[in-house]
């Protein structure tokens, strides 16, 4: 049975709906032993910071032994911790410390593939008759599943790779050094459940399951979102609910909303799934100063079961993916957010939040305001709470994975090692460099971005309506204003966002709330009572309001 979370106050089974999640890679956060690489003991030391920030869940990126050719998404051993980050004992210490602070921990789990260095694959490729041969997908030819797209278009020419040892092709949806596991094999399914069980027994609160649409392959299909894949996922969920109730599954499925919907099943598959198409449209709406991209994608977003939740994010460890936009929209996004071609990778933009928004505090706040008030669970990418920058000169997506900037001292307070031995160079430029931008300096001021982030997280957590309520868009005639009403039981919150760089006047049709007064949720100030006429608001550039409606 699962380890009881005695120290956790949040026992309620739908805790993930009220959560504010912090995404971090252990390598990037804090180096406790001076080897230049962040580790679990270091992460544990910084839990007070995260508790103070107000987040109540951490999503950890892969920390397993790995050749690290894809930032740990190429796992070579599912039952251990990469030695650079510590060991299992260190992880357990961190996990317990997090739980003691009321912070849950979701870990990354890569089900779809392993590293080609994983012993399973080494055995599988050793001969065509090896017992583990059918743990992976092998073929004599490379013309099977031809309708399947290539995801890493910049680096891969085919989804098949030739294995010179066993003289057959193996299937890989991502890099060629990441062979896909064969989920048609029940032994593989059982083995992977065993992996999950190992970590659940350790006490983790859930998994972010990577690349779930690609688990199975069928000829004549695009090998994505197959019914058989859903069967595998449902089986995992059923075992999770039965043996570890209260733990969650978060889907990484970069798909259109209609294709994503099946991943929730009837509330019996994933608890949460990332809303990938919404994110680029938030950036698009902001740049266009037009709510249309945002409202349209949310109109196309199907309802999900009561016990399910969208995961919302502005930025993460990957590129700002533009797979789920039209060609016209992608061109627009590239031109507006990645004029410099070095900022582009695959079908996306490898930049952090602050640089994407020209380091404009008003826009950063507005985007976070929308993130925190739309229906879903917000995820904050480490460093974005202080407005960290990126380094496009680093390869792949490493430019958004630089060390956390704690202070203006040695290595930005990240590590005592020689700067040359850090896993990644620190940001040094005058705008985003650690001497100008760090946690310590932002802690000093109430008006810093960090202080503001603490406030908005606190306000968000004070109103369950944000995590659990319904949403209704208001569609004021002023298309630069995005307004919606969130409702949960008797609690009603009105959110009004000005997407424009100019001041705007907007008239809101709030007749059905006639008689209510508006209470602005940050300053607690009272606004005029709603009457028969359209409710007139004037808003500064990129301003947003959260109003609690009260009938007194």
């Amino acid at each position, binding site marked *: 049975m699962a380890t009881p979370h005695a120290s956790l106050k949040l026992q309620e089974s739908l805790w993930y709906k009220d959560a504010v999640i912090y995404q971090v890679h252990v390598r990037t956060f804090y180096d406790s032993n001076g080897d230049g690489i962040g580790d679990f003991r270091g992460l544990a030391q910084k839990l007070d910071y995260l508790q103070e920030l107000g987040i109540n869940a951490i999503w950890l990126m892969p920390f397993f032994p790995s050749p690290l050719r894809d930032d740990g998404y190429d796992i070579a051993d599912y039952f251990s911790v990469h030695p650079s980050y510590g060991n299992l004992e260190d992880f357990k210490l961190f996990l317990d410390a997090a739980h003691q602070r009321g912070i849950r921990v979701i870990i990354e789990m890569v089900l779809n593939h392993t590293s080609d260095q994983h012993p399973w694959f080494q055995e599988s490729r050793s001969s065509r008759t090896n017992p583990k041969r059918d743990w992976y997908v092998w073929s004599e030819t490379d013309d099977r599943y031809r309708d399947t797209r290539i995801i890493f278009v910049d680096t891969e020419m085919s989804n098949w790779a030739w294995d010179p040892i066993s003289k057959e092709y193996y299937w890989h949806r991502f890099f060629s050094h990441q062979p896909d596991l064969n989920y048609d094999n029940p032994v593989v399914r059982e083995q992977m459940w065993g992996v999950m069980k190992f970590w659940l027994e350790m006490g983790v609160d859930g998994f972010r399951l990577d690349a779930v649409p690609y688990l199975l392959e069928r000829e004549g299909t695009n090998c994505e979102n197959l019914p058989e894949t859903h069967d595998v996922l449902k089986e995992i969920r059923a075992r999770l609910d039965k043996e570890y109730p209260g733990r969650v599954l978060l889907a990484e499925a970069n798909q259109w909303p209609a294709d994503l919907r099946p991943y929730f099943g009837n509330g019996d598959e994933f608890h949460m799934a990332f809303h990938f198409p919404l994110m680029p449209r938030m950036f698009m709406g902001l740049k266009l100063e*037009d709510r*249309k991209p945002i409202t349209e994608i949310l109109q196309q977003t199907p309802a999900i079961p009561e016990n399910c939740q969208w995961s919302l994010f502005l930025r993460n460890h990957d590129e700002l993916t533009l797979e789920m936009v039209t060609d*016209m929209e992608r061109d627009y996004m590239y031109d507006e957010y990645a004029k410099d071609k070095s900022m582009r990778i695959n079908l996306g933009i490898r930049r952090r939040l602050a640089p994407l928004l020209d380091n404009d505090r008003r826009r950063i706040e507005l985007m976070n305001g929308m993130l925190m008030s739309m229906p879903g669970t917000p995820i904050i990418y480490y460093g974005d709470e202080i407005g960290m920058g990126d380094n496009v000169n680093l390869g792949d997506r490493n430019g958004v994975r630089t060390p956390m900037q704690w202070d203006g001292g040695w290595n930005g307070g990240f590590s005592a090692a020689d700067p040359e031995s850090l896993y990644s160079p620190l940001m040094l430029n005058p705008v985003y460099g650690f001497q100008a931008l760090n946690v310590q300096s932002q802690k000093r001021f109430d008006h810093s971005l960090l202080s503001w982030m603490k406030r908005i997280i606190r306000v968000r957590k004070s109103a369950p309506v944000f995590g659990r309520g319904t949403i209704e868009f208001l569609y004021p*005639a002023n*298309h630069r204003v995005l307004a919606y009403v969130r409702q949960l039981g008797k609690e009603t919150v009105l959110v009004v966002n000005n997407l424009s760089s100019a001041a705007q006047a907007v008239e809101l049709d709030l007749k059905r709330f006639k008689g209510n007064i508006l209470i602005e949720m940050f300053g607690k100030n009272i606004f005029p009572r709603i009457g028969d006429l359209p409710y007139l608001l004037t808003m500064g550039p990129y301003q947003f309001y959260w109003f609690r409606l009260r009938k007194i």
Partner: protein
Amino acid sequence: MPEGSILTDDFLRELMNVGEVDILVGVPTFNDGKTVGQVVQAVRAGLLKYFPRQRTVIINVDGGSRDGTQEIVRAASISDLRHVSNVNTLRTLHSISTRYEGGTSPGSALHTVFAAADLLRAGNCAIVSPDSTSLEPEWIERLLRPVVRDNVDLVTPIYRRHKFDGLLVSNLVYPMTRALYCKRVREPHPSEFAFSGRLAAHFLEQDLWEQEACQMGAETCLTLSAINGGFRLAQSFLGSRARPEQAPSDLIRALRQTVGVLFWSLEANVPSCSAATESEAVPTIGAEHEVTLEPLRINRKRLHQMFVHGVAELEPILRSILSEGTLAELRQIATVPEDDFRYSDELWVRSVYEFAASYHKAVISRDHIVQALAPLYRGKAYTFLGQNRDASANQVEANVEQLCLTFERAKPYLLEMWNGRK
């Protein structure tokens, strides 16, 4: 309507919701329900295809239609409330409508559009006619692109016309504008045109809107204002412009909108006109197309009759307008049998210039002067039709050019008349 404003509060509210735009397309209407839908759809398609990233608005200014014109225009909006299937857009496209005071006066309509453009800080604007059923999305690109991309201030159209279409333009408005203002603008009174926010603001600032001439022929006023203000001009080949079905041919109205404005404009501009000498070509964009030559039935006989009757019936008026010599020559050619009738370029230009000078001196009611030009124009049109009956496209063009040169050469005569020494 609030006192002192040409914008209603409702319209102002709509403008407030639209906010700043990059491109504004105005569509003045009055009972154009049969055609405006097609036009607005083409405008919308043009904006979406060629300017998908720009903030755009279509503004209909209506003179009081009772045929649903305004509702048809509003239906062209694309927003998150009014999604159009099969139309993929980045942003909201507003299509709004308002009524303007002043009946069907084109000046009032354009004044409203210009005021809206100013308030919305529209840097690039266009006007399209609600009856241009041949308007294609590409027209929007051809009109607006020079403004958007090349900082041109006024883009006037060049249509693919039949050689006998637009006779008033080719025989009078174009040659006279060219001679007086030294810019070869083929359509000084355009139905479709584009202009910059700079020109709109400049034009708006001039206190012209209350002037009768501007009310009647605001388009011509704008062209002349652009020329005189030293703004950058360009012309764009658009394509064939379909004539509206059963469109009434109101020559007097057309004369007021064009020639009347030209005459009126001279009041303020004679000094600059005097200084200018040779005309300059205006940059022309797009693929040139020749005039079309297919046979066309025109009642020439009637034109000749109207000239003869006009010269006879209006003789007292013409005597006060024209010099003795010119009037005598007109009387003489009026006696020539139809088959031999010819109203020469020289006589035509002299007649027109004497009309302009008389307009200046206001020898009689100025409107009567403009109206009195109608029979003479018919005589010239008759001659032009005969002269070019079998002409090729190049020959027609050469004949128009000849007439233009005659207008240019005779310009000192106008100035002499104007200054009253003759």
